[in-house]
C-alpha cells in the first residue's frame, strides 16, 4: 500500500468520504468471520444466550419485541450512493423492504433472522460498512455534525477526527467491556448540530489564541433516566494529545464507573457523584502517568485521512442562481421547499438540502428501499454521490448546485420525499416505542403520526417556524425528548399509556433539559395539548422569536397555565 489518492483507487467513487484501505477491509472481514463463528457456536450451544449477548450486541444485533433488530453503523453519518443502494438491497432481501434511520446516525432493520445476519454483515463489508459497536457496553459508533465540510460556520471538518476515533475505538482491547455504553460526538462548527453536550464525551473543534486547532472536551452528558448536560473537562486538548486524553478518560471510567446498577453505570453518574473537578484530577493524573509516546501524533496519518474528506470538485458559480429564483416564483410548492429544507453552503452557488423522512402522518425516520434508491440516484445526479444521515432522522444531500435544486425537487417529489417541513413542527424525532421496542412503556410512533396530522397544513407550520418535538417511548430517551423544545415521554400508568410533556429542552451549545409541564396526558389528548401550547406561543411571541426563546423569556409557569386552564375547562388532564 502507498499513501494513495482516493480518486485513483476508484475512478468513479466520490472523493468526499473515507475509503477503506486493505487494512480496514481486512479488519472488517475479520469481524464478520468472527461473528459468523459466534453465531454458529451459539446455535450449537457452545455459547449460552447470556454469553452470546454482548458479542451479538457488539455486532449491532438486538433481540426485540417481535424479532431480532440489526443496527448498522453509518460512521459520522456519511454515506455514499453505493452504500445507500446496498442498504436498500439488504432491506429487500433480508427485511421487509424498509429501514429506519435513527437519532444516532445509524440504520435499523427490524426483521432480520439470526442465521442471516452474518450474510448481511458480509454484504455490508463489501461496500465498506459494518455494524460493529452500534450496541453493547463499548464505545459506540461516533457521530458528527451532518453538515460537516459544507457548513459556512465551520472551523474544521469534524469527520477526519471522527474517523480517527472510529478506528481507535474499534475492537479496543481495554474498552470493549465498559460499565455501560459510551457515546462520542464531534462538531467542528460555531453552531452545534451534533448535540455534543448530551453525549458521554462531546468534542468541539476549537482554535486557541495561537491559532492552533484543538478540542474542547465535554464529559458526562447524557439522557435516559437521569439526564445531564455535559461538563467541560478540558478547554483545549491539542490534536496531538486527543487520543491519549480520551484513553485517560476511558481508563478512569472503566475503573471507577459504577457497575452495581446499570442505570448508574454511565459516566454522567460518575461525574455527578464525584464532581467534575475530582474526575478531571483523576483523568489528568492518568494522562500524566501514561506512556504518551505510543499515541505520538502522526500528522501524516491525520492528513491521509483528512484527504478523503477534501472538497469535491466544485464549479465556480455565481452566488445567486437565476434559474433557482425563477423556479421558486413559478412553482410555489418548490419555493416552500427551498425556504424550509435548503440551507446555505460555504461554496457560492451550492446549497445543502435536507430531505425529510417525516411525511405528514408517516413514521419518522423510515425509508422504503425504493426511497433509498431514489436518494442514491439523487445524490449521484446532483451531489457527488454523497449523503448524510442527521440525528434528526433525516437525510442530507450536502453539495447540490442551486441550479439543480428544481430538478432534484422533482425527483424527490416523485419518490414521496419532498415534504417541506425540515425543522418545523411535523419534523418530529421519535423512537420506535411500543411498536418495536421491548423496553417501551408506551407507543411513540402513533403519537408522532397524530401530531403530524394535526399540523398537516404546511403553511401553518411555516408560520409557527422552527420547533422541535421529540418523543420517546420510555425513560431511556432514545427519542431525545429531554432536549426537545417540546418533549414527550411515554409512560405506563395503571395499565394506561400516559404522556409527560416537557418544555424548553435544547441540544445545542446552550443545552438545557426540558422542564415538566404538569401531569401526564392521554394519547388522545396529546395533539390537543401540543396545539394549545403552540397557539399560546403564537399569541405571546415577539417578532422573530422561536418557541424556546419565548419560553425562556416569559417563563415556564405561563406555559403551565395553559395546561391548567384546560383541566379547568373540564378536560381530564
Amino acid at each position, binding site marked *: 500500500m502507498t499513501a494513495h489518492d482516493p480518486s485513483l483507487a476508484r475512478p468513479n467513487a466520490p472523493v468526499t468520504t473515507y475509503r477503506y484501505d486493505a487494512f480496514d477491509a481486512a479488519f472488517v472481514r475479520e469481524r464478520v468471520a468472527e461473528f459468523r463463528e459466534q453465531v454458529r457456536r451459539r446455535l450449537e450451544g457452545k455459547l449460552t444466550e447470556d454469553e452470546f449477548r454482548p458479542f451479538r450486541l457488539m455486532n449491532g444485533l438486538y433481540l426485540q419485541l417481535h424479532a431480532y433488530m440489526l443496527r448498522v453503523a453509518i460512521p459520522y453519518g456519511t454515506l455514499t450512493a453505493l452504500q445507500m443502494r446496498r442498504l436498500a438491497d439488504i432491506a429487500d432481501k433480508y427485511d421487509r423492504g424498509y429501514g429506519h434511520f435513527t437519532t444516532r446516525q445509524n440504520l435499523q432493520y427490524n426483521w432480520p433472522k439470526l442465521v442471516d445476519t452474518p450474510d448481511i454483515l458480509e454484504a455490508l463489508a463489501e461496500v465498506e460498512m459494518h455494524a460493529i459497536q452500534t450496541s453493547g457496553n463499548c464505545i459506540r459508533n461516533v457521530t458528527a455534525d451532518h453538515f460537516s465540510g459544507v457548513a459556512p460556520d465551520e472551523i474544521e471538518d469534524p469527520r477526519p477526527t471522527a474517523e480517527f476515533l472510529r478506528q481507535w475505538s474499534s475492537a*479496543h482491547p481495554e474498552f470493549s467491556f465498559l460499565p455501560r455504553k459510551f457515546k462520542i460526538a464531534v462538531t467542528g462548527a460555531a453552531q452545534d448540530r451534533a448535540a455534543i453536550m448530551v453525549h458521554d464525551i462531546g468534542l468541539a473543534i476549537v482554535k486557541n489564541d495561537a491559532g492552533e486547532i484543538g478540542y474542547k472536551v465535554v464529559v458526562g452528558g447524557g439522557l435516559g433516566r437521569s439526564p445531564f448536560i455535559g461538563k467541560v473537562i478540558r478547554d483545549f486538548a491539542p490534536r496531538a494529545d486527543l487520543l491519549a486524553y480520551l484513553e485517560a478518560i476511558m481508563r478512569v471510567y472503566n475503573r471507577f464507573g459504577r457497575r452495581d446498577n446499570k442505570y448508574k453505570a454511565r459516566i454522567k453518574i460518575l461525574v455527578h457523584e464525584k464532581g467534575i473537578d475530582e474526575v478531571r484530577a483523576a483523568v489528568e493524573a492518568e494522562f500524566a502517568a501514561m506512556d504518551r509516546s505510543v499515541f505520538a501524533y*502522526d500528522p*501524516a496519518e491525520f492528513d491521509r485521512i483528512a484527504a478523503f474528506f477534501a472538497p469535491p470538485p466544485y464549479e465556480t458559480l455565481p452566488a445567486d442562481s437565476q434559474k433557482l429564483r425563477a423556479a421558486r416564483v413559478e412553482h410555489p410548492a418548490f419555493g416552500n421547499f427551498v425556504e424550509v429544507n435548503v440551507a446555505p453552503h460555504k461554496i457560492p452557488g451550492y446549497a445543502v438540502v435536507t430531505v425529510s423522512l417525516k411525511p405528514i402522518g408517516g413514521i419518522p425516520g423510515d425509508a422504503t428501499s425504493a426511497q433509498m434508491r431514489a436518494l442514491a440516484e439523487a445524490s449521484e445526479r446532483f451531489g457527488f454521490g454523497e449523503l448524510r444521515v442527521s440525528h434528526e432522522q433525516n437525510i442530507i444531500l450536502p453539495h447540490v448546485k442551486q441550479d439543480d435544486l428544481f430538478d432534484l425537487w422533482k425527483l424527490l417529489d416523485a419518490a414521496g420525499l419532498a415534504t417541506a417541513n425540515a425543522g418545523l413542527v411535523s419534523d418530529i424525532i421519535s423512537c420506535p416505542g411500543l411498536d418495536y421496542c421491548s423496553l417501551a412503556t408506551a407507543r411513540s410512533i402513533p403519537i408522532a403520526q397524530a401530531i403530524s396530522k394535526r399540523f398537516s397544513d404546511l403553511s401553518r407550520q411555516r408560520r409557527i417556524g422552527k420547533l422541535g418535538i421529540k418523543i420517546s417511548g420510555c425513560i431511556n430517551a432514545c427519542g431525545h425528548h429531554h432536549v426537545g423544545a417540546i418533549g414527550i415521554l411515554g409512560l405506563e400508568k395503571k395499565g394506561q399509556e400516559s404522556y409527560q410533556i416537557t418544555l424548553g429542552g435544547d441540544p445545542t451549545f446552550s443545552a438545557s433539559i426540558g422542564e415538566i409541564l404538569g401531569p401526564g396526558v392521554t394519547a388522545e389528548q396529546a395533539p390537543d395539548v401540543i396545539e394549545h401550547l403552540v397557539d399560546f406561543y403564537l399569541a405571546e411571541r415577539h417578532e422573530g422569536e422561536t418557541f424556546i426563546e419565548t419560553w425562556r423569556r416569559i417563563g415556564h409557569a405561563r406555559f403551565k397555565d395553559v395546561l391548567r386552564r384546560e383541566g379547568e375547562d373540564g378536560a381530564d388532564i
Partner: protein
Amino acid sequence: MALISDGRFIDDVWRRLAEEEALPKSGKVIVSLARLDHAIEVHGPGVDLGVIAPNTTDPAALADALPKLGLVSIVFPAFADGRGFSLARLLRRAGFAGELRASGRLLADQYAHALGCGFDTVEIPDDIEARQDETQWRAARDAHARTYQRGYVAPGSILDARRKAAAQ
C-alpha cells in the same frame, strides 16, 4: 479448571494456597491479597510467590510487592466486567514482568483482549472449559490478528503497518 497459555491448555505449575494452609518450604504458590504482606515477610528462598487480586485493587497498593512476585492473577467476576483489563495495563505499566493471569469467567471471545492488555495466561472454570475447547480459544485469538490501537500487545497494529508501508 483449565489454564490457557499461547492458545493451548497447559498444566498449572502454580498452586493456590487455601486461606488456612501454611506457607510451604518450596514451590510456586498463589496467596490472597490479604495474606500477601505476611507471605512476603516470611517465605523461604525456595518459594515463588504469586497473588490473586480483585479487579478493584489499587495498583499503588501493590507497587512495593510487584518486584517480589512471580505471578499476579486478576479476577474477572463476570466476563462483562472489564475492569481487569485496565488493571492489567496498569500493572504492566508499573513494571511487573512476571506472569499476568486472568482468572474467573473470561470467555474465549475475549482472549485477544486479554492478550492485548498484557495477560499471559487465562484460567477458566470447568463449565466454560466444557463448552470452549482449545480450538475456540485459538480461533478467537486469531480472529483479532489486526488492531487499530498502539501501545497494546498485539501482533499486527494497523497503524504501524501503515507507517511502514508509507515509508517504503
